[in-house]
């Protein structure tokens, strides 16, 4: 992933073409002089970064020598000094000018530690390793989720006993962001989905002459399942991601540490108000979404199937049982809890880099949607068992 960032940074420069000022300076050269004691090398030209290719070629090709004369080197920088240090080996360095001595000595003093090589890899072992890591990460996620749920519950219980610990202003602020401001988009989305389900219902049921049951289909589907799922998915994408990014960047800049140092519990100050806001907002949005989806179905029934609104409402009141409505509404706060807790867990996992902030935000959305759907399945089993 790191390469991706590097690549992105690279792309913005690619078009400009590299700047090479080689024309302005003379190429570095290395003359070989056979002498009595052995081979002597004589360096000249500009030994600078602009000639990195040439410098590398020189040190790769150079034979072992007894002496290296650098009197002819016109210009020198750390690239050149490094190349000379590599070339020198056991040879004696001569012709060092006063100007160049400091840098050559500074580079010669370095340990020249080479980075450790990459060890050979085994495909099967790698695959097993990543499978193992994924499984243990999933296990760790479950533990983190439970731990955060516990922390938030403790903060909640504490707040029940000390009502001033409910950060009311904060809760209201978040309620506005994740609830009130979300109403238009949620209403529009559920309206459209209600309309689409109704249209599909009329189109297919018409073949069997079962048009009357379309209203039942729309009502049950929306109230029991689709309404709350749509709202949860939207809340995860819209609010959960924002929570993770906020908490994550506070973690990155040590703001959370500052809060803890002052003796405040981040769960009480940052997480509880956000989670509570979601737990209130999601059921409310689910209710609004259900009404708006039923309205969408009604519009289609009227315009597409010619069922007048009074008849639609009449059919609706026969089709809708209180149970369907309750099933949807009971699920809503639990869905909100999943989104809020996952967002907090992921936010606190952010580390120093901007990249981890992005990765955590993505995983917050993905994990909370996945968990919400799993939870929906569990609820389905539960409601079937209790006969709702």
């Amino acid at each position, binding site marked *: *992933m*790191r390469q991706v*960032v*590097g690549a992105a*940074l*690279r792309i913005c*420069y690619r078009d*400009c073409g*590299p*700047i*090479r000022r080689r024309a*302005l*300076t003379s190429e570095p050269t290395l003359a070989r002089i056979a002498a009595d004691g052995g081979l002597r090398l004589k360096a000249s030209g500009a030994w*600078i*970064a*602009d*000639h*990195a*290719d*040439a*410098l*590398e070629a020189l040190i790769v090709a150079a034979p072992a020598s007894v002496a290296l004369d650098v009197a002819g080197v016109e210009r*020198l*920088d*750390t*690239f050149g*000094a*490094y190349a000379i*240090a*590599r070339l020198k080996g056991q040879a004696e360095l001569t012709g060092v000018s006063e*100007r*160049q001595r*400091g*840098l050559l000595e*500074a*580079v010669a003093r*370095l*340990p*020249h*530690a*080479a*980075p450790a090589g990459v060890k050979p890899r085994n495909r099967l072992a790698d695959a097993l390793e990543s499978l193992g890591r994924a499984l243990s990460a999933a296990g760790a996620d479950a533990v983190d989720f439970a731990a955060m749920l516990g922390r938030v519950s403790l903060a909640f219980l504490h707040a029940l006993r000390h009502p001033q610990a409910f950060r009311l202003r904060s809760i209201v602020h978040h309620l506005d962001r994740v609830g009130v401001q979300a109403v238009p988009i949620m209403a529009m989305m559920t309206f459209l989905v209600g309309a689409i389900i109704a249209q599909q219902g009329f189109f297919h049921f018409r073949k069997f002459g079962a048009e009357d049951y379309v209203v039942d289909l729309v009502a049950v589907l929306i109230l029991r399942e689709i309404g709350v799922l749509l709202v949860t998915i939207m809340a995860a994408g819209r609010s959960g991601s924002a929570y993770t990014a906020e908490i994550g960047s506070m973690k990155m800049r040590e703001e959370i540490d500052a809060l803890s140092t002052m003796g405040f519990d981040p769960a009480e100050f940052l997480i509880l108000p956000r989670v509570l806001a979601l737990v209130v907002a999601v059921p409310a949005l689910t209710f609004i979404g259900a009404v708006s989806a039923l309205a969408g179905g009604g519009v289609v029934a009227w315009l597409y199937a010619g069922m007048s609104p009074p008849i639609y409402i009449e059919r609706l009141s026969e089709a809708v049982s209180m149970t369907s409505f309750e099933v949807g509404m009971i699920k809503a706060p639990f869905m909100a809890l999943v989104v809020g807790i996952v967002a907090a867990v992921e936010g606190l996992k952010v*580390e*120093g*880099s*901007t*990249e981890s902030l992005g990765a955590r935000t993505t995983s917050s959305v993905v994990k909370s949607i996945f968990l919400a759907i799993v939870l929906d399945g569990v609820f389905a089993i539960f409601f079937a068992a209790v006969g709702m």
Partner: protein
Amino acid sequence: MTPLDESAIRIETLTVGFGAKIVIDDLSLDVRRNEILGLIGASGGGKSVLLRAVLGLLPARAGRIEILGHVRGPGSAREIGRRCGALFQQGALFSSLTVLENLEFPMREYLGGSDAFRREVAIAKLEMVGLSAEDARKFPAELSGGMVKRAALARALALDPEVLLLDEPTSGLDPIAAGDFDDLIRTLRRTLGLTVFMVTHDLDSLNSLCDRVAALYGGKIVAIGPLAEVRGVDHPWIRAYFRGARGRAALA
């Protein structure tokens, strides 16, 4: 090399501000080739703003900035970027790249040679600023404040620039590391013919490293010259700056 010109950086009647607030006010300043110029000024006095304007990061309300004979403008960004290294006050290392990759990134863009060769030189540069090959593999978030400064200096030196702009390079370093830093800059200045424009409050650096010192006050340069001269200037802020207990101790 560019045609020989007396000044490496020439700032002419520069004005920079935010909204109604003027931070740099009609300021002119020349940094000569191969000199080390120290800039002092009160906290919040606009030193970083001046440096950022020279780097082309803040728009100038008025005035002209010339670096190595190139007028600062959209057309010269890449040429200046190649020949001018900068160290930001907070380091500004790329957080998603390791320290080594932070150095390799500009080198790969501007210089030739193989990846392996550039990597070796990058490690040598990190060692020159006092970091180990092991530190090179770390991410910026895993470094201490002083190590961030060193890594950022190594990155500023990655392309062997001709001009170096440094914003409080030794703040956050222990005195030994700060001394090593001064030695390194001195060595590079002599061999590379480096020009350095640095913001610093380190009176040791001002004393032993800087050829000239410029004092920024009220958005203008109120004094410039060798430290001994600037210390003698009769200006209330300069007097307070050098005659304070800390100033006396360091220059004693």
